[in-house]
C-alpha cells in the first residue's frame, strides 16, 4: 500500500472514532450543527460537480433536494403518521402502506432525483450560461409548484410532519465520506477530465471527440443523485419538510458554499461547508438584541451573510481554494519545508 493511502485510511478511522464518541456524548444542538455540516458537504460537492467542474451554471439544486427529501420522507414515514399528516385528502394507494428502511429509501431518493435531472437535462442542457441558469431555476420552481399542488402525494403546502429522525452522525458523515470518495475518483477518471475540458472550452472539447451532451447529462444526473441523497438526509434530520423549504434560498445557500470554497475544488467545498454552517450558527447572536437599548433586528444575520458573499465575489473571486486540492504531499511539505525556504535556497 502506498504511504498516502495509509494516511487517508487513518484519517477516516480517526473521523469515525470521533463520530462514535460524538454520537454518544455530544448534546443535540452540537449534533445538529455537525450533521448539517456533513449534509451541506454532500450538497456542496454535488453542486460543485455540475457548476464548478463541468461549468454548467445550474440553479436547480433546491428542486433535486425537494425530490430527494420528499421521496425519503414518504418511504420512511410510519403508516400511522402518514394518516395523521394526510387529513385533508387521503394519500394515494400504494404509498400509504409502504414503509422502507432508511438506506434503500435514501438510494431511491437519489435515483429518482437523478432521473428527474435526466428528464430535465436532456432538453435544457443544450442551453448555455445565463439561459441554462434561468431554465434550471425555472425547473426547480416547477418542481416546487407541483409538490405544492399534489395534495394526495406530497400533502401540498401543509408539508410532512413527524418524519423519523434517522439521520445521525453515522449517516451524515458516512454519506459525506462516500461522496468525497466517489467525487475524487470521478474527477480523476476520464469522465472527470472530460468534464473539466467542457468547462474550459466546449468547442475545443467537442473537437477532441468528447460527447458534450452525454457528459453534461451525466454530470447533471450524478450531481442530482447526491443532491437527492443530501435532501433526504436533511429531511430526516429536520423531521418536517414543506415546499417552501426548497425555494431559491436553498440553492443560494449551496451556491454560497461553492463560491466561498472555490468553484472546482473538492477540498474547498468541504472546508467552506463547515465554515458556513458553523458561522450561520455562531452569527445567530446578530438576530438577538445586541445593545441594551436597541431593539433586535431579526434578519440581520442574513444581511451580514449576503455582504460576506458579495465581498468574496468582488474581491476574492477564487474563493478559499480556487481549483487547488488537498494532498498529503502538500500537507507535509507545508509543515516540513517551511523553515528551509526561509533561507532563500530552492
Amino acid at each position, binding site marked *: 500500500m502506498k504511504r498516502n493511502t495509509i494516511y487517508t485510511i487513518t484519517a477516516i478511522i480517526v473521523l469515525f472514532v470521533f463520530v462514535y464518541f460524538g454520537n454518544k456524548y455530544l448534546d443535540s444542538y452540537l449534533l445538529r450543527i455537525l450533521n448539517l455540516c456533513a449534509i451541506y458537504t454532500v450538497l456542496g460537492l454535488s453542486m460543485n460537480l455540475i457548476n464548478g467542474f463541468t*461549468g454548467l*451554471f445550474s440553479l436547480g439544486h433546491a428542486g433535486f433536494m425537494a425530490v430527494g427529501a420528499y421521496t425519503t420522507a414518504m418511504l420512511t414515514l410510519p403508516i400511522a403518521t402518514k394518516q395523521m399528516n394526510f387529513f385533508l385528502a387521503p394519500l394515494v394507494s400504494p404509498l400509504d402502506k409502504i414503509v422502507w428502511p432508511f438506506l434503500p429509501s435514501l438510494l431511491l431518493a437519489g435515483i429518482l432525483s437523478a432521473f428527474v435531472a435526466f428528464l430535465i437535462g436532456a*432538453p*435544457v442542457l*443544450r*442551453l448555455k*450560461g*445565463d*439561459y441554462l*441558469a*434561468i*431554465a434550471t*431555476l*425555472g*425547473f426547480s*420552481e*416547477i418542481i416546487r*409548484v*407541483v409538490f*405544492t*399542488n399534489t395534495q394526495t402525494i406530497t400533502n401540498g403546502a401543509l408539508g410532512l410532519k413527524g418524519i423519523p429522525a434517522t439521520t445521525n452522525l453515522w449517516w451524515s458523515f458516512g454519506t459525506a465520506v462516500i461522496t468525497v470518495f466517489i467525487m475524487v475518483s470521478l474527477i480523476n477518471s476520464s469522465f472527470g477530465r472530460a468534464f473539466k475540458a467542457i468547462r474550459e472550452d466546449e*468547442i475545443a472539447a467537442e473537437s477532441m471527440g468528447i460527447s458534450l451532451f452525454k457528459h453534461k447529462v451525466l454530470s447533471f444526473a450524478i450531481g442530482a443523485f447526491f443532491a437527492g441523497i443530501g435532501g433526504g438526509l436533511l429531511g430526516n434530520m429536520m423531521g418536517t419538510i414543506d415546499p417552501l423549504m426548497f425555494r*431559491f434560498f436553498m440553492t*443560494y445557500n449551496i*451556491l454560497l458554499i461553492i*463560491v466561498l470554497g472555490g*468553484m472546482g475544488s473538492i477540498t474547498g467545498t468541504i472546508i467552506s461547508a463547515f465554515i458556513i454552517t458553523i458561522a450561520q450558527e455562531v452569527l445567530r447572536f446578530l438576530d438577538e438584541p445586541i445593545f441594551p437599548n436597541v431593539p433586535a*433586528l*431579526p*434578519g*440581520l444575520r*442574513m*444581511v451580514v*451573510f*449576503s*455582504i460576506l*458573499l*458579495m465581498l468574496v*465575489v*468582488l474581491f476574492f*473571486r477564487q474563493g478559499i481554494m480556487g481549483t487547488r486540492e488537498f494532498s498529503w504531499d502538500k500537507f507535509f511539505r507545508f509543515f516540513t519545508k517551511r523553515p528551509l525556504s526561509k533561507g532563500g535556497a530552492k
Partner: protein
Amino acid sequence: MFSGIMRNEWEGSLTKSYLGGVYMTLELFLQHLANGISLGSLYALVAIGYTMVYGILRLINFAHGDIFMMAVYFAFFGVMTFGMPWYVSFIIAIALTGVLGITVETLAYRPIREAPRISILISSIGASYLLENLAIVIYGGRPKTFPQIPLFTDMVQFGTVHIQMLTFMIPVVTAVLLMLLMYLINKTKSGMAMRAVSKDFETAKIMGIDVNRTISFTFGIGSLLAAVGGIMWGLKFPSILPLMGVMPGIKCFIAAVIGGIGNIQGAVIGGFILGIGEILLVAFLPELSGYRDAFSFILLILILLFRPTGIMGEKISEKV
C-alpha cells in the same frame, strides 16, 4: 334558494358557452382580457429593465426584481409614514429607485466588469439576496397594506362587470413611458450612446463614449421603469412583502427572453404574452390555477428549446 340556483344554472346553460371547463360570458371574457392586458403592461415595464441591461452588459440582473420591490416600499413609506400626498411620494419613490439602481450597478457590477460572466452572475444573485435581506430587516417580514388611492382604485361599471380604474390606467401609463423611452433611445445623444455600447463595447469607448456613465444611465432608466411598474403593482395587489419582487422579477425576465432578449419591443410583446396568458389560463382552467407560476416557466423552456433567440431576437452564432 335551492331552486334559484337551479334556475340560474339552467338559464346560464342557454346563454353561456362552455369553454374549457368554465362558463364564460363575453363580458367576463373581456374583463379577464382587460386584467391580462394590465398585468401584461406591468410585466412589460419591468421586462424592459432586464432587456436593456442584458443588451448592454449581457447580464441577467437578478437584483432587478428587488429594485422593483424597493420602489413599492419607498412609495409606501412616503404615503404612510411621512404623510406626503401620493403624487409627491410616488415621484420621490421613483427617483430614489433610480438612484438605488445606479448604486447597485456601481457597487456590485462595476468592480468586476472584466471578470468571467459567471462571477458577474453570482454577484447579481448576491446583490439580489442582499436587497431582500435588507428589506426583511428594515421593513419587517410581515405583509403591509399599500395605501389605496381612490383615483386609481375606484371601480368603474361596464354593464354587469366592475373593473378598477387602474386596469385601464396601467396600459396607458405603459404606452406613454414606452413612447418616451423609444424617443430617448432613438433620438437623443444618450440613447445613441446606449445603442453604441450595446453593439460594441470597445469601439464605443474609442469613439469617445463614457461607457461607465452610459451603463449607469441604462441601469437608472431600467430602475425608473421598474419603479413605476412596482408602484402600480402595489396599487393593484396591495399586500406587499420583502420577497414580493422575486416572482415578478423572474417572470419579467422570462418575458424578456420570450420577446428576444436585448430587444425592447420584444420585451413588451413578451410581457403581454405572459400577462394575458397567465390570466386566461386561470380563467379558463381554474383547476390549474395552482400551477399559475409554473406556466411562465413552461413557456420559457418551450421558447428556449424551439426559438432560443425569442420572438424578435436576432440569431448570433458563436465563433471559435
